[in-house]
């Protein structure tokens, strides 16, 4: 099913409202803030991955000229053991507080130990170096296997783990859960082909270009104002309130423009430190900026770990059983996306008998955060590689196999719930028909290079949750839209377009603004692929409410009752008298004579959006002498529900694919034995440059989401799910080697080729 709905605004490509500021350098990002009397902060971070803090001597810093305030964990209020819901994910406040500044112990390299506010950036930096910390270095555990081994150092000593419902003490295993449906043994006994392998992945980072930053004022009334780059102003407020033990109503979070997030700018890092330093310096504004090394060392990457997948198929090519064991490193505190991974691992398939075990494991690395479809890329690497191998073994076309086993409306996902209307089959069919898949692969790349083609599927559920939008009508017929969703990639325009569609006016006539937490109703994070869906829905509701109010005005002007007036095609009209008709703009011009301003509000708390499926096709060219891989053609196919602004939908698909390509080929946290990330710079982290990529082709499949008025599905996260698996499958196609560790870098390819060729 593909959208046939006719829209006036939706599906067009207007210029985003915030674009002008962003191409002229006028847009104000977090680090651009400068306030009168502002001080500059810096943070002392642990050089050790695991150590007890025996003493902290700040006297050297305090004695320096230009140093105004110094803080340690002793300045933090005691946080209770309380779970706080952040919209996408939850945090334990005690851990959150210890994460922001170490108390007694450091759990990862880069863990903050003290902070300073001074009259210049350089004085603050020098002052941090003057703080003396005595550490007792402890043994560290860097991988999930090390952390679960006998005799492993216990990282969160007071934590009680949950092993299938049983309490476990003295463990790094925060959680082990299981999903089980059908009869696994029976399912595997019906299989004639069974493939099982383990897939390892390194920790990787979102790699947003703008480092974290925060500026805070804690004033004499005990009110805190924070200017920050965040995916969620309200979740930032909640976290600050929890960690500082202050009422949320006393905190105003001003979200500035945000230079990328991808999930990494949901947790807070610097805000409470800036606030406490402000308080200690008598209410002066304090700004703290991370540098790139801080970002790698001490923000929230996505986990490393491993995924084991076992899958059985019968002679007809039907999957009869599937089993998975997923172990993620959470970082220095509990809370990896292993739960989400378990939801996604078999979600592209309709399988009667499944079992999934998930483990959340603490290690001495930075505490993980969300990263675009968190957990789903990991499990797709495993499942989609196994599927590729099965197809080869049973001699079935890889797309036919996927179509034959595809999950669809009514299929049971392996964690339990039944799928609503989804576009998995439609996406696969569009991939099959795509020019890329239909093209012939020229296997000889010249100069001894070999080419291969791979394909893989991916799924991400899209969350719903809370959003608020306010609309007010100007007498010139334009509408001001106020929202709480921070705009990372063009959501102002996609939300404004949904309001404009209802109101029957051009997108340009709706002016969207993202405001602070004092100025709009509660709105959850820009994350979980929810913003265009949920905040768009709130805008839709607000616009509908506006039409109702304007209908009353039209009724009063024409002396009719409201039910005698209809609104369609952007016009208010009498149902009986064709002479009586006004455009939105014409009616707006009469507001001041009919009762004054007209405003409205839309607020929603939505269930999930049903999810989005993607299929990616990739052609690689590999130099077998060096192991160097180049992507020569790439196509992304995705069910996007309804593409509100197709350019930005394509942009999400392209950007996600390229992050996945980087993850597949080169990106990783390269850890020393002591738990230090050795490549904590853009030079050695090796994200793709423009020269590493071809055009990224996009095919938008539109299976409208039945629970959204315009059929919107979240599109932002799914595009990062298939690339790692697609590239692994293409490497096999080119070289005949199955790589089961990411990144599949030149070194690994050379080793595998050598093993194969002897």
């Amino acid at each position: 099913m593909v959208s046939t709905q006719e829209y006036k605004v939706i599906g067009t490509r207007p210029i985003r409202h915030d674009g002008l500021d962003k191409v002229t350098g006028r847009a104000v990002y977090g680090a651009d803030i400068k306030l009168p009397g502002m001080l500059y902060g810096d943070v002392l971070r642990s050089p050790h991955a695991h150590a007890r803090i025996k003493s902290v001597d700040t006297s050297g810093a305090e004695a320096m000229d230009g140093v105004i305030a110094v803080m340690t964990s002793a300045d933090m209020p005691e946080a209770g053991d309380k779970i706080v819901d952040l919209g996408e994910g939850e945090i334990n406040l005690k851990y959150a507080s210890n994460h922001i500044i170490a108390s007694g112990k450091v759990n990862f390299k880069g863990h903050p130990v003290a902070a300073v506010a001074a009259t210049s950036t350089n004085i603050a930096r020098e002052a941090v170096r003057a703080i003396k910390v005595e550490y007792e270095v402890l043994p560290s555990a860097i991988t999930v296997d090390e952390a679960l081994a006998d005799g492993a150092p216990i990282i969160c000593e007071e934590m009680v783990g949950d092993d299938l419902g049983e309490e476990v003490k003295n463990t790094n295993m925060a959680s082990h859960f299981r999903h089980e449906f059908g009869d696994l043994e029976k399912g595997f006994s019906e299989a004639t082909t069974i493939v099982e392998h383990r897939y390892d992945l390194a920790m990787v980072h979102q790699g947003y270009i703008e480092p974290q930053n925060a500026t805070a004022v804690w004033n004499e009334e005990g009110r805190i104002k924070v200017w920050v780059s965040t995916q969620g102003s309200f979740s930032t407020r909640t976290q600050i309130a929890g960690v500082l033990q202050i009422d949320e109503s006393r905190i105003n979070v001003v979200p500035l423009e945000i230079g990328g997030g991808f999930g990494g700018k949901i947790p807070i890092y610097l805000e409470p430190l800036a606030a406490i330093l402000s308080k200690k310096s008598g209410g002066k504004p304090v700004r703290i900026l991370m540098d790139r090394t801080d970002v790698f060392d001490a923000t929230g990457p996505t986990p490393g770990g491993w995924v084991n997948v076992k899958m059985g198929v019968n002679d007809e090519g039907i999957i009869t059983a599937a089993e998975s064991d997923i172990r993620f490193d959470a970082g220095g505190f509990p809370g990896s996306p292993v739960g989400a991974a378990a939801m996604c691992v078999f979600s592209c398939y309709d399988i009667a008998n499944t079992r999934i075990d998930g483990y959340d494991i603490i290690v001495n690395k930075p505490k993980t955060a969300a990263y675009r479809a968190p957990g789903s890329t990991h499990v797709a690497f495993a499942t989609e590689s196994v599927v590729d191998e099965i197809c080869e073994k049973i001699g079935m076309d890889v797309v036919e196999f996927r179509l034959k086993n595809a999950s669809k409306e009514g299929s049971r996902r392996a964690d339990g719930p039944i799928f609503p209307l989804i576009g998995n089959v439609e996406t696969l069919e569009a991939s099959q028909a795509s020019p890329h898949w239909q093209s012939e692969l020229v296997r000889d790349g010249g100069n001894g290079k070999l080419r291969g083609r791979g394909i893989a599927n991916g799924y991400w559920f899209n969350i719903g949750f809370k959003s608020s939008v306010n609309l007010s009508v100007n007498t010139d017929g334009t509408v001001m839209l106020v929202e709480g969703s921070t705009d990372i990639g063009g959501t102002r325009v996609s939300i404004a377009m949904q309001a404009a569609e209802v109101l029957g006016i051009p997108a340009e006539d709706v002016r969207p603004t993202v405001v602070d937490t004092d100025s709009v109703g509660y709105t959850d994070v820009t994350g979980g692929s929810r913003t265009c869906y949920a905040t768009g829905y709130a805008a839709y509701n607000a616009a509908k409410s506006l039409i109702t109010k304007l209908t009353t005005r039209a009724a009063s002007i024409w002396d009719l009752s409201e039910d005698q007036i209809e609104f369609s095609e952007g016009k208010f009209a009498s149902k009986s008298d064709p002479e009586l008709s006004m455009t939105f703009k014409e009616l707006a011009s009469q507001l001041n004579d009919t009762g004054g301003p007209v405003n409205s509000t839309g607020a929603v708390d939505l269930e999930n959006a049903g999810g989005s499926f993607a299929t990616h096709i990739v052609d690689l060219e590999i130099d077998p002498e060096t192991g160097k891989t180049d992507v020569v053609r790439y196509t992304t196919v995705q069910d996007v529900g309804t593409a509100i602004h197709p350019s930005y939908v394509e942009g999400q698909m392209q950007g996600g694919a390229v992050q996945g390509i980087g993850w597949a080929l080169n990106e990783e946290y390269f850890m020393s034995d002591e738990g230090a990330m050795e490549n904590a710079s853009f030079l050695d982290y090796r994200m793709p440059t423009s020269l590493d990529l071809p055009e990224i082709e996009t095919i938008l499949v539109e299976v409208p989401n039945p629970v959204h008025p315009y059929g919107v599905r979240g599109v932002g996260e799914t595009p990062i799910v298939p690339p790692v698996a697609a590239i692994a499958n293409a490497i096999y196609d080119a070289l005949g080697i199955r790589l089961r560790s990411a990144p599949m870098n030149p070194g690994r390819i050379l080793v595998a080729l050598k093993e194969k060729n002897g």
Partner: protein
Amino acid sequence: MHPFDYVAATSVDQVNSVLAEHGKRARPLVGGTDLLVQLRGGRFELDVVVDIKGVPEANVLDLNGSLKMGSAVSCATVYENEAISAAFPGLMDAAELIGGIQIQSRASMAGNLCNSTPSGDTIGPMIVHGGQVNIVSSSGSRTVAVEDFCTGPGRNVLEDGEWVLDITFPAPSSSFGAAYERFIPRNEMDIAVAGAASSLTLDGSGNISEAKVSLAAVGPTPVTVGAIGDLLEGKTPTAENFEAAGKIAYDAVSPISDMRGTIEQRRHLSGVLTRRTLAKAAERAKAG
């Protein structure tokens, strides 16, 4: 960062006197693409940086058969010069792949040399082009071959108060060719996992009269493999001979394993890149 002073020097003498006064606590500044990053990262402290971009002698770029390249001349200035590009192809190969355009606009080959990292892309090409470094100080000047300049990772022959004013290269014969290739996992903005610079001179009958190979990122300093010259001299420039040269390179290097690559990968790449750059150098030598 330890606060340092900045001096924009306009003469050789001025640079000499600042360096003489401050010794280890002062260094010349050209591109800043290594120096400022290292200072910011706390690798070492300085009291003064001396900007030498205003010193006329450091900006010389004189091609007169031989080439004289001032130490402040940016990589971009070098490769944009077509005559130099044609005569010194090994230098061109390296200058065009350092950093991105932004880095090439500032960084100089002398700066790359003085940074003395084993992975420095321009050092091998300068070696195979026979570069001679003109080192000056308040007490005079001396000349050191590029080949003998680096003494360890980040270390070189410069004494306190000394700096590089220029590097000269002899005029290549008409049957000379050179090439540089490095291996990086990306296509730009990366540090060599391994690199190879090769040069060849052919005699009247098309045989190799001289061959030189210098390898990057496979030892504490650039590794010049003399045995390859011995092997190839008098031989014909064939794939088989270059393959044999690659095997010598494989055995000659002693790399380490780190985040950028493993020992075996680097040895293997040394062989591959030696073969490839010799072949490219031979093509260029034949083309004259």
